[in-house]
């Protein structure tokens, strides 16, 4: 059984159909890069997977459980799948430690000492254990994004969705975040990432999905997709990079 099963998923905003029948199965431990032009529906697909958007048609199931749009099901789903955003979205009123502890305590009802232990472990994993008491606005963008990763990991998800998590960073800060992601991949975390880092996709990902106008236009192993694109659209897209 696949970890994430996306079947004939359609999503419209009013008249505008943004996803036009997406099929994609993700196996545990896979690292999938989603590439494609702006507006091709990459973010929308990720947001549908963890229920930030409701799908218009089709089905999505995670670890065998169907996605339903009510609070109980959504919560169960989001315990299995974490998400990292382009803009970090750390909680500015909480310290780094507080950011990583909050949802453990509120959602999982973990006792504070355990939550703190977990938070310190996860911050260590992203190399920021010494920033436990700092506030987000005292950190660089790269550090903030690593905290966001630690925050998601502290919920012990089965998979992580990453939407252009290095796009808001200064170029010199991209590497530190990618290094963390690379390590997660090596440890066997299932990752679905929208990215413009083609080199990273080539090195780390097990499959690459090329989206075009709301469809999965090409999919395959990175060495095939990058070296031997089948469609003119992908050829053109890769030419731009």
């Amino acid at each position: 059984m696949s970890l994430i099963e996306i079947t004939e998923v359609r999503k419209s905003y009013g008249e505008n159909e943004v996803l036009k029948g997406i099929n994609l199965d993700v196996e545990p431990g896979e690292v999938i890069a989603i590439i494609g032009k702006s507006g091709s529906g990459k973010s929308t697909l990720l947001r549908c997977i963890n229920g930030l958007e409701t799908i218009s048609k089709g089905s999505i199931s995670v670890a065998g459980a169907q996605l339903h749009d009510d609070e109980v099901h959504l919560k169960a789903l989001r315990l299995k799948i974490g998400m990292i955003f382009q803009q970090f979205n750390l909680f500015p009123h909480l310290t780094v430690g507080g950011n990583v502890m909050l949802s453990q305590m509120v959602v999982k009802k973990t006792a504070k000492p355990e939550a703190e232990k977990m938070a310190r472990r996860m911050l260590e994993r992203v190399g920021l254990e010494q920033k436990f008491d700092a506030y987000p606005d005292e950190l660089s963008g790269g550090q903030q994004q690593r905290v966001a990763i630690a925050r998601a990991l502290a919920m012990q998800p089965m998979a992580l969705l990453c939407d252009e998590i290095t796009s808001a960073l200064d170029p010199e800060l991209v590497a530190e975040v990618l290094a963390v992601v690379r390590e997660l991949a090596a440890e066997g975390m299932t990752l679905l990432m929208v990215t413009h880092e083609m080199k990273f996709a080539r090195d780390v990902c097990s499959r690459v999905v090329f989206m075009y106008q709301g469809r999965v236009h090409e999919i395959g192993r990175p060495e095939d997709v990058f070296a031997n694109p089948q469609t003119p659209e992908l050829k053109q897209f890769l030419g731009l990079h």
Partner: protein
Amino acid sequence: MIEFTIWDILRNLLLATRWTIVLSLVSFIGGGIVGLVLLFLRVSKRQWSRSLAKYYIELFQGTPLLMQLFIAFFGLGLFGIDVPAWLAAGLALIFWSAAFLGEIWRGCVEAIAKGQWEAAASLGMGRLQQMRYVILPQAMKIAVPPTVGFSVQVIKGTALTSIIGFVELSKAGTVVTNATFQPFTVYGLVALIYFALCWPLSWSSQILERKLNVAHRNY
């Protein structure tokens, strides 16, 4: 004819000022509680609850407070319910304040980036938890100056309740004037007392706002 000293006048006015203060506090606190309910209805995911709060707010913001006082006082009387002036005054001011506070606070909640809701949601928090632990702590900070500022409107709003016979500062002013025939002195003192109540509030509201702008963290 009896002579009234300034002190006599002032003493009577200050005694009545108690009721202005009590009514202001009741309206502000009661309005705050109802306003909080309105806020939650207003930012809910459910369409009917958003509409309900929206119509409530439009109704109370779209009609003069004076009319609301009349309706609470005389309107309920038509149904055989005898409403004392203090109750009508309290209720009308509570519901009126709630409409404005609810709307002020909605603005503050909406000023918080959508990504904050989404991050909290993606960590598994329910709607109320997102509000309680992530949105409100941030929104409350920016809500303080306009909320304190609005409390000035509440104090001034209590003056209208004199029309339905509630004896607070303004009503006392009228009564004392009728006894002393010194309208200028009396209303001058009334104005001074209102100013003494309101000015510290609007001043601190401005200070708080300036502080907030300086200590602007990254939101």
